[in-house]
């Protein structure tokens, strides 16, 4: 797992967070291990049960004015308690300065303290966004990601099965390429995974027989997209006579990526089969399902009703000896 040290946070995001270190070079080697922040009001008041000390501690106006209201003895006592915990980082907002005793104890325990000009709310918002994306679970998948009618289709399958060619064909028809060959996938929320290209590859693509091409240069800015939610996996497979493919579409097959379940469609590839058109239909059918319209299910339900009606009529007439 990637780690974020206090020093790295400062050097990379100093301007964005408007950080100013109140204790130079103290505790810069400390590791931030999660994306959560905490306002230690209760801890400052002396209640240390369940104190979330491993989070970044944010001190706003309330906390600072509370500290200033304490007598010297009380403050000394609280500071001893507070700094007995291993705390990764304190951030004081609105350009305020904590009492000298606070900084003395921080220096003594090698705990970093930053000041920012941002308000507490603004700081916490920016920190959450930055840290959430920094600590988000990530993986890379061998495949292609294309935005087809606004639905993110992730093509997977063996090398040479035609993922890139399929993506190329879709781009030609006005859809947008997100990544080819290597797709970086990040979990953004409990049910959302987002794919993007690896920086080094950009929107380049290798096509058998041609070599490396640049989709943005060839097709223009409309043909690419920087990131897209991954919504359906399209698994391309060589056609296998012995295998049974889904004929009805009533059992939804699902796959799990980074703990997020998405539908998977297995498409057998054979010469002359137009995967591009099938892809567009997969996207549109997915949207229909999202909007509550499951064609396959409605169709088979109608069929079952029809069969049941025939059976009732049959039984009725059979019993009719008239």
């Amino acid at each position, binding site marked *: 797992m990637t780690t974020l040290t206090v020093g790295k946070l400062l050097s990379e995001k100093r301007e964005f967070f408007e950080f100013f270190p109140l204790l130079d070079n103290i505790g810069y080697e400390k590791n931030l291990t999660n994306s959560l922040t905490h306002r230690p009001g209760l801890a400052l008041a002396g209640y240390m049960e369940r104190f979330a000390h491993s989070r970044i501690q944010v001190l706003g106006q309330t906390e600072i004015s509370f500290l200033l209201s304490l007598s010297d003895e009380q403050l000394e006592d609280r500071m001893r308690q507070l700094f007995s915990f291993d705390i990764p980082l304190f951030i004081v907002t609105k350009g305020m300065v904590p009492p000298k005793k606070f900084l003395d104890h921080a220096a003594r325990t090698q705990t970093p303290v930053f000041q920012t000009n941002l308000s507490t709310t603004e700081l916490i918002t920016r920190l959450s966004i930055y840290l959430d994306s920094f600590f988000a679970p990530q993986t890379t998948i061998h495949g292609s990601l294309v935005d087809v009618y606004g639905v993110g289709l992730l093509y997977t399958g063996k090398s040479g099965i035609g993922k890139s060619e399929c993506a190329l064909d879709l781009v030609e028809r006005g859809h947008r390429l997100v990544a080819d060959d290597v797709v970086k996938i990040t979990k953004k929320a409990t049910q959302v995974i987002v794919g993007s290209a690896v920086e080094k590859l950009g929107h380049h693509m290798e096509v058998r027989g041609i070599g490396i091409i640049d989709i943005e240069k060839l097709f223009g800015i409309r043909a690419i997209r920087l990131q897209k939610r991954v919504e359906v996996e399209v698994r391309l497979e060589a056609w296998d006579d012995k295998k*049974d493919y889904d*004929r*009805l579409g*009533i059992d939804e097959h699902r796959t799990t990526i980074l703990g997020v379940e998405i539908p998977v469609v297995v498409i057998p590839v054979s010469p002359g089969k137009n995967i591009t058109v099938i892809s567009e239909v997969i996207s549109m059918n997915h949207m229909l399902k999202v909007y509550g319209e499951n064609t396959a299910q409605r*169709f*088979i339900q109608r*069929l*079952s009703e*029809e*069969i*049941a009606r*025939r*059976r009732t009529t*049959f039984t009725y007439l059979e019993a009719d000896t008239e």
Partner: protein
Amino acid sequence: MVEREVAIVNRLGLHARPAAQLVQKASKFESEIKLKRQNLEVNAKSIMGVMMLAAEMGSKILIIAEGPDEREAVEALAQVVQGKFGEE
């Protein structure tokens, strides 16, 4: 050409899942296979066609096969129907 008449014996009739089973079984054979119910005749390898039959319990369908493996095909399909498609 081989023909055999079978009765639908499962309670729910030839609905979507049994139809899919029948079609998948039929697709394994090389012969031309047709299913006939009253005057409606459909290709046994076409899922939409087989579902069109909407055969209820008690109704009879005729399996007609023609080709190199016609005998095996009719036998296999009849078994699928008589085995109630794995339903009650």
